[in-house]
């Protein structure tokens, strides 16, 4: 196909921060007022653009944490060597403004009509779009069976823990803690492996729909394990993010 030059379209809009909430020591949820927002679907993301006084600007993508029909929230993890996340997690206050573009992405999304059973596997802040999916499932009254396997460094690093624990019962929520486990920890320990999936993954014969989100190496390792378990490639949806 031929190449061409395309003039950029104006798709950025100004968002006003309405609240900043601490999730863990390094993670904040930021609620945004976006008057022109067309609505989003669980799993989508948005781009944030920050511009300094000298004109230097930086863009980053963040998953939308809220369900369909809710006001837009994003959840941001502070990366110590990051250019944008330290500002968003430490400096940002209600009333501050930023530029936002979105919602973005029609592949890594879920709605009740997409069915299941759902297998959601998240690493670190990869839980954000997966939380939006679980939240939308709950709010829409969907009875699609769902299981979440969430890998975090320690229990203190688990984002949305209170909310996720509330889904226990209508969904199955399991944690694996990779670096440290509290005394008497009854969940999984260590990186996601085939033995864990043998206990939590729906059998391929049930035609499951999987969503995997996390750092690139995490996503690739888990996707490979699921394909080895005969999950169909087209029903294993993945989203990778950078930073460590």
């Amino acid at each position: 196909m031929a190449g061409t030059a395309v003039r950029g379209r104006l798709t950025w809009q100004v968002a006003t921060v309405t609240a900043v909430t601490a999730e863990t020591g390094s993670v904040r949820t930021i609620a945004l007022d976006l008057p022109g927002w067309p609505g989003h679907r669980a799993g989508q993301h948005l781009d944030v653009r920050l511009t300094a006084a000298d004109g230097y600007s930086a863009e980053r993508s963040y998953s939308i944490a809220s369900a369909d029909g809710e006001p837009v929230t994003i959840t941001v993890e502070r990366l110590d060597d990051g250019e944008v996340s330290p500002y968003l997690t430490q400096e940002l206050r209600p009333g501050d403004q930023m530029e936002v573009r979105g919602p973005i992405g029609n592949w890594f999304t879920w709605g009740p009509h997409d069915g299941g059973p759902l297998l959601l596997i998240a690493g670190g802040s990869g839980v954000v779009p997966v939380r939006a999916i679980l939240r939308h499932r709950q709010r829409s009254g969907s009875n699609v069976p769902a299981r979440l396997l969430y890998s975090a460094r320690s229990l203190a690093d688990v984002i949305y823990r209170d909310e996720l624990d509330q889904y226990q019962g209508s969904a199955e929520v399991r944690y694996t803690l990779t670096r440290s486990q509290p005394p008497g920890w009854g969940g999984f320990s260590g990186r996601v492996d085939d033995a864990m999936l043998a206990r939590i993954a729906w059998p391929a014969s049930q035609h499951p729909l999987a969503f995997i989100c996390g750092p690139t190496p995490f996503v690739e390792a888990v996707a490979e394990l699921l394909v080895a378990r005969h999950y169909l490639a087209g029903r294993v949806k993945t989203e990778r993010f950078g930073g460590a």
Partner: protein
Amino acid sequence: MTLDGNAIGGLLLEIFGRDMTNAEASCAACGAVGPVAETTVYVRGPGTVVRCRRCTSVLMVIAQVRGMNCVDLSGLAALEANPRR
């Protein structure tokens, strides 16, 4: 830094005027067909490079030059915005 096609959803939206993460890309080199979301994407070079997840051939290159997006799609045999899946 290696990401995937989800990460350039906003850039592609700007260029194509619609969501392209769900579009179906056909690799001109190996014939692999799959959603743009699942391609391999490198964003830290001087431009954005999109590669085939199966054979690693370059599918698309996008570079910003003086406010213009220069888009090279020569590694694609086809890009179907409304795939029938």
